[in-house]
């Protein structure tokens, strides 16, 4: 019954590797997001997809590539991992905004550690 799920919850890898984090939502939402929470707990949006189209792309290195195979999934692929990529990554989803606000539901987070 998990609304927004992420896999894996923990990921430990070496510098230079390529890794993916998967996100799935079963809420029927149109919009999905990736956030990064750094070691100081600062939370910042990275990407947003609406109906599989990219609508928000913050200043994120192009080593990060989101992929949305369908509305229910938004995966995050990271190439050539660096030490500074160590963080907790959160996926979230919401209905598409059509005036006003739609609540975002967050996944449990994936703690990525780059050694």
């Amino acid at each position, binding site marked *: 019954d998990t609304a927004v799920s992420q896999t894996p919850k923990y990921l430990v890898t070496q510098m230079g590797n390529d890794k993916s984090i998967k996100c799935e939502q079963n809420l029927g939402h149109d919009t999905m997001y990736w956030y990064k929470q750094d070691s100081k707990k*600062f939370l910042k949006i990275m990407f947003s997809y609406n109906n599989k189209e990219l609508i928000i792309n913050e200043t994120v290195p192009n080593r990060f590539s989101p992929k949305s195979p369908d509305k229910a999934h938004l995966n995050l692929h990271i190439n050539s991992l660096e030490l500074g990529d160590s963080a907790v990554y*959160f996926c979230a989803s*919401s209905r598409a905004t059509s005036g006003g*606000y739609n*609540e975002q539901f967050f996944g449990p987070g994936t*703690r990525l550690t780059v050694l």
Partner: protein
Amino acid sequence: AQTVTQSQPEMSVQEAETVTLSCTYDTSESNYYLFWYKQPPSRQMILVIRQEAYKQQNATENRFSVNFQKAAKSFSLKISDSQLGDTAMYFCAFMRGNFNKFYFGSGTKLNVKP
């Protein structure tokens, strides 16, 4: 650009007492929303309370209430009858209307002591 500032990195409160967490924001927008999210040690982000900028009445959710001062751009969270389960990081967040992008503050770590 929108900014959200939480000036209290950490706070403590005794169980059953009341605590207020501060948040200020800066924006030139007139249509926006403000939020408080709770992040317990489990890491899960949980929506605590939401305030629409066009509403003058302060939002309340059970033991949680806000003091929304629009002119001062202040949005504080009051937790009454604090419980041990309230121990968490609390994030203040801003969102422009019609645009689902959050701007988060740096968080306040709240410790509720027995």
